[in-house]
């Protein structure tokens, strides 16, 4: 009996947490300054992509190109404190709606408050990708089947979203030595990844998954693996205006959304986010980010991390795996086609 009561109590608390977050997004809507609203051109049933960016001029051309090819119909960007031409670049794109803000990224739950507001207004009823500019979304059959085939399948099987594992991609030598030019395929240089180990657990009360592991845990968080970055995400969702992401796209409310993904070894259909964080520019950027302290709840604890990165490290070792395609990732148990054959 206490179990039932407890569950009811948790469900009640989570419902109010969700409402609080939605209201927070509503309150912060004023922080967004609209630059180009082309959302009128969004077709019914179009697949949308939401993203908050800061100085991503280098990554955006490939990011847009890749996801356009998958079949994203419209992109909705929030540009936060950009000074590298990102805003101008995005303003020129015909399928991009653009907002900007100068307020704090951290105070906006790392951009989520802004995106939540845009999702309430534009996402309802659409399949929506929520990505960072350094995340390239792939899924089983992605090079032969458009996103629309995937979302049709998810619709048919009654799933509200798709989970994915973040895979940190890195070059063979020191990070800054692999020179990248905007628009090129980043995975020519960032061809390597750690195929394991990964560790997972469920966290309460959100019932969200917590997967850690991969290269960042191996290199940067050996002494304190608990602090290693979270690698599970649910980037693709058939949006409902009552949904809200809680912590990046790692977790969401209502809690049932968190059960959509059970980690890389699960047999359910799942995808991968190829993480282009470790492009050559990361070395320079780390010095900056350390100053800004806008990326982690408790930024001071991550000083070492930024220092390590700023020192232009080599992440590659002899156990690194070379990326060959989704079939390889599936064979390694990092994603699964599930029942989508």
């Amino acid at each position, binding site marked *: 009996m206490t179990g039932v009561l407890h569950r009811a109590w948790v469900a009640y608390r989570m419902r109010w947490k969700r409402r609080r977050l939605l209201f927070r997004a509503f309150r912060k809507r004023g922080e967004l300054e609209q630059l180009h609203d082309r959302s009128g051109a969004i077709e019914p049933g179009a697949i949308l992509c939401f993203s908050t960016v800061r100085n991503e001029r280098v990554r955006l051309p490939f990011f847009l190109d890749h996801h356009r090819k998958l079949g994203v119909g419209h992109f909705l960007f929030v540009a936060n404190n950009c000074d590298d031409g990102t805003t101008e670049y995005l303003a020129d794109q015909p399928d991009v709606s653009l907002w900007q803000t100068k307020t704090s990224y951290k105070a906006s739950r790392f951009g989520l408050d802004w995106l939540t507001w845009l999702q309430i207004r534009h996402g309802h009823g659409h399949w929506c990708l929520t990505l960072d500019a350094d995340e390239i979304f792939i899924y089983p*059959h992605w090079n*032969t*089947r*458009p996103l*629309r*085939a995937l979302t*049709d*399948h998810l619709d*048919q*099987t009654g799933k509200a979203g798709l989970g994915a594992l973040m895979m940190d991609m890195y070059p063979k030598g020191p990070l800054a030595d692999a020179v990248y030019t905007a628009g090129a395929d980043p995975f020519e240089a960032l061809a390597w990844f750690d195929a*394991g*180990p*990964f*560790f*997972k*657990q469920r966290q309460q009360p959100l019932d969200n998954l917590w997967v850690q592991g991969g290269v960042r845990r191996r290199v940067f968080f050996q002494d304190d693996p608990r602090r290693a970055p979270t690698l599970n995400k649910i980037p693709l969702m058939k949006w409902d205006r009552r949904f809200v992401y809680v912590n990046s796209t790692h977790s969401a409310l209502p809690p049932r959304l968190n059960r959509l993904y*059970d*980690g*890389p*070894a*699960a*047999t359910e259909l799942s995808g991968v986010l190829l993480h282009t964080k470790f492009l050559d520019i990361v070395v320079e950027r780390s010095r900056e980010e350390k100053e800004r302290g806008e990326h982690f709840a408790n930024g001071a604890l991550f000083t070492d991390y930024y220092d390590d990165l700023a020192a232009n490290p080599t992440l590659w070792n002899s156990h690194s795996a070379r990326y060959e395609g989704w079939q390889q990732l599936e064979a390694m*148990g990092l994603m*699964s*086609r*599930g*029942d989508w*054959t």
Partner: protein
Amino acid sequence: MRNVGFILLVHASLERSAQVARHWAASGCPIVIHVDRHVPTADHDRFVAELSGLEAVRFAPRHACEWGTWSIVQATLAASRLMLTEFPDVGHVYLASGACLPLRPVQELQAYLDRHSKTDFIESVTTQDVAWTIGGLSTERFTYRFPFAWRRQRRLFDAYVHLQRRLGMKRRMPEGLQPHLGSQWWCLTQKTLTAILDDPNRPEHDRFFSKVWIPDESYFQTLTRRHSTQIESRSLTLSKFDFQGKPHVFYNDHLQLLRRSDCFVARKIWPRADALYDSFLSNDPAVTKNAEPNPGKIDKLFAKATERRTNGRAGLRMQSRFPRDGWENGKTCAPYSVFQGFAELFDDFEGWIERQAGGRVHGHLFAPDRVHFAGGETTYNGALSDAAELRDYDPEGFLTNLIWNTRGERQCFQFGPGDNQRICWFLASDRNARIAVISGAWAVPLFKSGRDFAAIRPEAAQLQAIEAQYLTQLRSPQVKAQVHIWSLADFVDAPMEPLQMIMDEIGPRGARRLSEAPRMVDLTGFGRFLQKLRNEGMNPYLMGDFPADADIAPRQNAGRRRPYAVG
């Protein structure tokens, strides 16, 4: 040559349906189209207008169709009636859906049906033998009433089923009908279809089936058994279902696969799969090679997916989802091997494995008559008796003792659905057990026996049911044994690799190459034997897919009896 007429049930992606209808009509086939009443009027009118120029196209009276209900059969019956009155000359009537795609030229289908002008192609299996029903409702589909829609009124549906179960309610089948199930998509002769529609008891049949669950999978399948003179129990339409019973969808990247299937029609096709529609909607004979349909080629791919889906994958260094029950006392003390189906498939398998791997190889230790110890001994090491009663008093104890008494010498034994099954879960949950199964191999001795078919049929059904249950246990997440399962078809296709693997497992001392291959029994005609079981209403599925070769198809699959590359 008599023509084939198509009944097309349409409810979504109307452009694609129109495209397919136009293709068939242009090839000279009469078509009756049923458009679901749920389709908005504007869409419907546009669809009709698009096909209005075609002479041999008729539109059947519209019903509002709901999945799992009588309305689908009603629509099919209405369309069938229209077909028979408007085009009385058709030889066969082919039931297809708007998500179907013809894979081969119409001429090839016509020629094929012409060669089998009296045959009804309809999957029709008795309820005891079906393998695919979801949720445990097979016989109960017929014995209960289902007035509620499963998709819309799930709670009422479940509650009413539960109530009928509690009250022990039962409906009586109409006189002279044996319940059969099968794929919704059939191709019946004009004669059989007419007989079903004009059956004097039709009002009674319709009344009965209107309360059956998913009658589109049983109405024609049951009534064809009453009226047909020649049933080929398989569908000419390739359609796959996943483990939840949802139809698999085909995409552009399935093009080669579909081409290799040699099937006449496939469903469902993703409406935006342009490449599929572009390449298959053609009557160019170069598209295919006029072969016997062989859905088995595709089966293997899909079976693998289903298996992966239901069994999970091992081997990742992950923290477990749930704490496992970590202790297992009372099991055996050393590794041992259990073979199922090998002795049936190979001559003198026991002798062969003893020569190859050493150790002690027994026969069926759990045979009903007595314990078949190696060398036919009556008492064994440690004075274990071969008496079946003593063994069956405590089968776990019997095995634990055998393994204990013979420690230092690897023990192997044969097992099968004919044996005492009480030991099954013990085997599955024993970390020391190495279990290798060729599923469906029990059918080989039946095939070889040449016994009366009427006697074989029930025995086959029983063996299959027993083995299916064992396999379910072996696939449960609590299994501790090392388990390998191959379908007979897969195994026969490439036997050396699994055999080598088994050897490696028994004797891990370096790479031991097989010096001699076991001799496989001759399987010529086995595919036809299975098809005969199917035509009798059974559904032999555990052996994987053997094409029904021999008499109905002149083509013999060359891969079936490949010589072994030894070593």
